[in-house]
C-alpha cells in the first residue's frame, strides 16, 4: 500500500491534469456527503450540548457549555465523526467501484488504452478527499455548534450572553485549524486505503465485498490511530 500511495503522489504531479474528474469526485465525496455529515453534526452538537449542560450544572457553570462544546467539536468531534461518516458513505463506494472495475477487467482495459488507472481514478479521489474532508468538517462544526446553541439556549435555558461570550473566550482560530489539519490527514488516509482495497480486489463479487469491508474497517481504525498521532504531534503529550 505504501508503494501504491507513492505511485499516487507521483501521478498527481504528471499531466494531463483531469479537473473534470476532480470536480466530479469533489461533488460525490463533498456535496454527496453534506447531508449525512450535517445531520450527524447537528445531533452530535445537540447531545454534547445537553451532556455538557448536565456536567457544568454541577458547578453552576452552564455558561461554559457553548465554549466547551465548540472547543470539543473543532478539535476532536468534527474531524473524527466527519471522517467516520464519509468513510461509511464514500470510502465504501470508492472501494466497491474500483473493486468491481478490477474484477471485470475494466482497470486492465484502461491500462491497455494507455491511461493509468491510478492517474485517472485514484488521484482525483485522493485529492478530492483531501479538499472535501476539511470542508465537511467545517460544516459539522457549524451545525454542531448550532445544535448545541439551540439545546443550550432554548431547551436548557442557558443565558445567551455567557454562552456566546465563553465561546469567544475559549475557541481560538488554532483550535479550528487543529481540527482541519486532522481532516486533511484523515482525507488522505481514507482515500488511499479505500482506493487501494478496491484496486487490489480479487476473486469476483466476494472479493469486491471483502475489499469493501476491509476498506471501511481499516479506514476507521486508521482514523482513530491517526487522530491520536496527530494530537500528540500538534499538542504534545
Amino acid at each position, binding site marked *: 500500500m505504501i508503494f501504491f500511495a507513492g505511485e499516487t503522489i507521483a501521478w498527481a504531479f504528471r499531466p494531463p491534469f483531469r479537473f473534470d474528474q476532480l470536480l466530479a469526485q469533489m461533488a460525490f465525496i463533498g456535496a454527496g456527503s453534506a447531508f449525512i455529515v450535517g445531520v450527524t453534526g447537528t445531533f452530535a452538537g445537540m447531545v454534547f450540548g445537553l451532556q455538557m449542560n448536565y456536567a457544568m450544572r454541577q458547578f453552576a457553570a452552564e455558561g461554559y457549555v457553548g465554549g466547551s462544546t465548540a472547543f470539543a467539536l473543532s478539535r476532536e468531534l468534527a474531524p473524527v465523526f466527519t471522517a467516520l461518516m464519509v468513510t461509511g458513505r464514500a470510502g465504501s463506494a470508492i472501494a466497491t467501484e474500483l473493486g468491481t472495475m478490477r474484477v471485470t477487467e475494466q482497470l486492465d*482495459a*484502461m*491500462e491497455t*488504452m494507455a491511461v*493509468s488507472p491510478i492517474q485517472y481514478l485514484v488521484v482525483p479521489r485522493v485529492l478530492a478527499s483531501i479538499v472535501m474532508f476539511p470542508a465537511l468538517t467545517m460544516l459539522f462544526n457549524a451545525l454542531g455548534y448550532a445544535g448545541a446553541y439551540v439545546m443550550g439556549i432554548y431547551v436548557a435555558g442557558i443565558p445567551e450572553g455567557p454562552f456566546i461570550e465563553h465561546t469567544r473566550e475559549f475557541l481560538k482560530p488554532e483550535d479550528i485549524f487543529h481540527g482541519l489539519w486532522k481532516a486533511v490527514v484523515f482525507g488522505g488516509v481514507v482515500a488511499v486505503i479505500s482506493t487501494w482495497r478496491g484496486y487490489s480486489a480479487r476473486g469476483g463479487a466476494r472479493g469486491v465485498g471483502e475489499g469493501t469491508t476491509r476498506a471501511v474497517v481499516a479506514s476507521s481504525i486508521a482514523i482513530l490511530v491517526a487522530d491520536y498521532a496527530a494530537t500528540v504531534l500538534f499538542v504534545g503529550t
Partner: protein
Amino acid sequence: MIEVQDLWKSFGDNQVLKGISLRIPEGSTFVVLGGSGSGKTVLMKHVIGLLKPDRGVVRVNGIDISALDGRALTEARQVFGMVFQGAALFDSMTVLENVSFPLREGRGLRLSPAEIRRRVVEKLAVVDLGEEVLARWPAELSGGMRKRVALARALVSDPRIVLYDEPTTGLDPITSDYVDEMIIHAKERLGITSMVISHDVASSFRVADRIGVLYDGQLAAVGTPPEVRNSPDPFVQKFLSTWFAKQ
C-alpha cells in the same frame, strides 16, 4: 512486430508458461490456440505489459515492454488496442463515452467533440452498429453488441497492434463470422498486427497467418494453418480433431 523470447510465468506453485517463444511480423495475424486454463490470456497480458514475466523478454517494435513501468509503459501502450474476453466496457459510461475513451484520454489528442463523435460513429458503423446505441449503457446491450462495441473501442484510435482475447466466445455463429471478418479486415485494409487468443478452431484457421497451439505452458506446434493441421503432436491432433472431425 512482437517478439516473445523464453517466457516463463508462475502463480504460486502453478507454472503457467514454460519458455514460450514466438514472433509476430508486422501486419500479420497470429492466433494462440489452446484449451481453457492453458495460459493463453496470461501470455497475452505479458505482451501488453499487464503481467511481468518471471523470466524472458517481450519486445514490441524493438522495445522490451517487460522491462518498462509507470509512465514509460503507459506510453509504450499507445500502439495497442485490446478486446477483452468479457468486453470490459466501462459500465459507468455510455457507448459513446466508452468508444471515445482512447481518443479523449489515451493518446494526448486534442480533438473537438464533433470530431470525436464522428470517429466513434465511423468505427461503430464498421462493426455494424448505428448511432442509436451511442447513448445506451453497457448493461442495456446484448453480449454480441458488447463485444462489437469493445471491438470499435479497440480500433477507434487506429492502433498498430490489436490483441483479441477470445473474440468469438459466447457469440452466435453469424456474429462470430462477422468478428472474424473484422479481424481480417483490420489486417488487410489497415495493416494491423493482430494477436488472437482463442479456443475456436474454425475461427482460428479462418483469420490466422500463423497459429501456435498452447499446451501445458508450451507451444506444442507453431506454423501456418496447414502446417499446424499436419502437426504430428498428439495433443494438437486431438485438439484439432474436435472441429475437423465434424467437417
